[in-house]
């Protein structure tokens, strides 16, 4: 998994997003340990404090928790929470946009559903 850091968005947010991605895709199962801030820093050549900020963001949201003396772990139920969040984002990002575009082109909601089924059949 190569991460191209986007220089035009805060890095700590991108770190948080990568961790969320890993959790959703099952690369980071619940109750497993997340890489340390130093490991993140070394891997992506970023400042460890930035990595820590990204991790802490997820700790605040309850996605990760800290085991004293050991490190950061994925919380139980984290995946479910994230999937819900992503679904809502999906709706905003893709569905709403799609509907707007469809409206421009004069495609009705029913025609839209047909298109979706057509795309799914491929």
């Amino acid at each position: 998994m190569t991460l191209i850091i986007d220089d035009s968005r805060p890095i700590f947010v991108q770190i948080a997003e990568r961790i969320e991605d890993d959790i959703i895709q099952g690369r980071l199962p619940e109750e497993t340990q997340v890489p340390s801030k130093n490991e993140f820093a070394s891997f992506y050549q970023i400042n460890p404090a930035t990595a820590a900020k990204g991790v802490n963001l997820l700790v605040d949201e309850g996605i990760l928790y800290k085991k004293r003396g050991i490190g950061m772990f994925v919380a139980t139920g984290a995946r479910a929470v994230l999937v819900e969040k992503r679904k809502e984002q999906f709706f905003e990002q893709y569905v709403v946009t799609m509907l707007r575009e469809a409206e421009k082109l004069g495609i009705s909601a029913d025609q839209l559903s047909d298109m979706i089924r057509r795309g799914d059949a491929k």
Partner: protein
Amino acid sequence: MMNNVVEVKNLTKSYGKVTAVNNVTFSLEPNKIYGLLGRNGAGKTTIMHMITAQLFATSGELKVFGEAPYENERVLSQVCFIKESLKYPDNYMVKDVLELSASLFPNWDKEYANALVQDFQLPLKRRMKKLSRGMHSSVGIIVGLASRAPLTIFDEPYLGLDAVARAMFYDRLIEDYSEYPRTIVLSTHLIDEVSRMLEHIIVIDGGKILINEDADELRGAAYSVAGTANAVESFIAGKKVISREPFGGLLTAGVFERLTETDRKRLESLGLQTAAISLQQLIVQLTNKKLETKGGSRP
């Protein structure tokens, strides 16, 4: 904060009629990586020389580790300043520099230094005079890293280093900083390469501070707008415009504001395109032209 590593207040340095550093105020907190950025001649090097007591200020207040640095052993022993093209005594060999550094810097790590010498493939017995520029820089980098000085300043440390060696420097820097946090100042014009490592960014332009911000705050703090000149002009009216690039009937403008939802919708309705501005581009644009506050005015 009382235990700032560096406190600078109204610092000014003039040479006759020329003011190299103009009433500059900022502070550096412990255990952070700072980027001191700006064009050549903007005043960065002058400021760093004053912090290390190599130059004397014309006026203003300067404290390092809470004290004035001039002739101050307590302060100076905790500072390591690696500047580009440092002149070593003529007959010095690489190993002379390293052995001397070992006695000068209280936190020197000999094994780490040796490991770095291997990494950078430095010939220990060669005269400093006879080293290529890249190797000369490598020596400086090794001293800067192995000194583990609580305040370590690198002024354009990569003169002559190829991309591989630079990547190795960043790698070692992050690694060592993670394990031994300290205050590091990187002064450079190669913003892109190092921007990810920086926590805080200070941009100096014409002897004054242009930006003094958390690095992440600056990412995504500006965006560019492109489209037909008229549409762009109407969009950017009243905004903080930092650049303008006309091309035929088209115009690309840089706006130093965060893109709000309302603005994004307005962009779409006007048929304009937008892209985020990277840190490097932001700094380049800011230092190329002074900030315009009225978007509607034409040069």
